[in-house]
């Protein structure tokens, strides 16, 4: 198999080899993912190439995340142009989906913008209500072999976090497919981390502790996290 891999590098790549980047990104279907897993288990040369691909994958995410976001000017320009668009004429359409899309297409840009704004406002209100409920609810206590809520003074940690100006470090993390919930919970506890966003194709955004860290410390944290058995990818993220 090793000889086969060397041959592959010199000649045309095999189908399995070409699928490795999608395996790293977690976008293969179950059948192909299994084929790749089996090949990786058999072929150490292929496995080394996969390690290289995971590096590329992590750095590509890091590079793109560092690009920032467009200014408000772009959004203002867009919605000003949409507002200036002529109102659309309703068309004769058949079928439920076409009638629904026809309904929205028939609304003026401003009406739709207001509807979107109201929807966003409703979401904000909902978030505020949930936030108030969470803040007012008595904190859930937990206890592990080495740590209990009463010993750590969680309330102080939370209060400190609210006072911080600089955000604590965050990372995009993908857990290993065989990671158990109990393992993930233990890892989150040991890193004082919480999941703030995620589930999108297996990627979770974690926040660590309540205080900002220096760049070196964040890099060390990422290295430590990456070395965890149940973590298949960890990339610092804004």
């Amino acid at each position: 198999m090793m000889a086969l891999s060397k041959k592959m590098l010199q000649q045309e790549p095999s189908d399995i080899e070409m699928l490795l980047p999608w395996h790293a990104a977690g976008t293969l279907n179950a059948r192909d993912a299994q084929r790749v897993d089996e090949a990786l288990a058999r072929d150490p040369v292929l496995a080394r190439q996969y390690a290289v691909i995971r590096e590329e994958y992590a750095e590509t995410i890091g590079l793109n995340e560092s690009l920032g976001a467009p200014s408000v000017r772009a959004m203002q320009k867009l919605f000003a142009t949409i507002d200036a668009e002529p109102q659309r004429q309703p068309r004769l359409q058949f079928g439920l989906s076409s009638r629904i899309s026809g309904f929205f297409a028939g609304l003026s840009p401003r009406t739709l913008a207001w509807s979107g704004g109201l929807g966003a406002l409703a979401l904000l209100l909902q978030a505020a209500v949930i936030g108030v409920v969470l803040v007012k609810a008595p904190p859930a206590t937990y206890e592990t072999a080495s740590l209990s809520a009463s010993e750590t003074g969680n309330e102080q940690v939370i209060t400190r976090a609210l006072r911080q100006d600089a955000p604590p470090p965050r990372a995009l993390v993908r857990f290993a497919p065989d990671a158990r919930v109990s393992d993930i919970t233990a890892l989150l506890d040991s890193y004082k981390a919480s999941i703030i966003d995620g589930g999108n194709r297996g990627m979770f955004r974690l926040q660590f502790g309540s205080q900002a860290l220096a760049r070196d410390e964040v890099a060390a944290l990422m290295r430590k996290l990456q070395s965890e058995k149940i973590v298949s990818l960890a990339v610092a993220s804004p």
Partner: protein
Amino acid sequence: MQVLYGRHHVRVFRFGLRLVRNEQVAEDLISEVFLDVWRQAGKFEGRSAVSTWLLAITRFKALSVLRRKKDLELEDEAANAIEDTSDDPEVVTQKKDTSEALRRCLKGLSQDHREIVDLVYYHEKSVEEVAEIVGIPENTVKTRLFYARKKLAELLKAAGVERGWP
């Protein structure tokens, strides 16, 4: 439209920026993309993810912009910008910072290679979705990414970084 914009504008912007390599142009680009989406919402058939549809429009518009503004001119500007903001390859080598070298070399890939690397790794698009966005057969998608990775390895090697592949 605001919800759609709020949900997708950052990724669309970053994809566009990686193609046109100019923030101002990329901002204008996303305005054009979402305006097109607004005008042509009825043409979206729901056979693919909205993000795939948006990225396909972004790519088409970015290539039009590049053609309009003369490809070479932008490439030169981008190359100069990279020189201004980063260390040269020798310094990168001295630092033995593979991570920094990798990012630098990812910026140095050709437009064809940059877009396919970004679509697969950052935008997490499947082979089928990349084929739809770029408008090439699925087998070409696979081989193009393979050769993009080989090119990346060559660039890294030239910068003094050996990773054991190929």
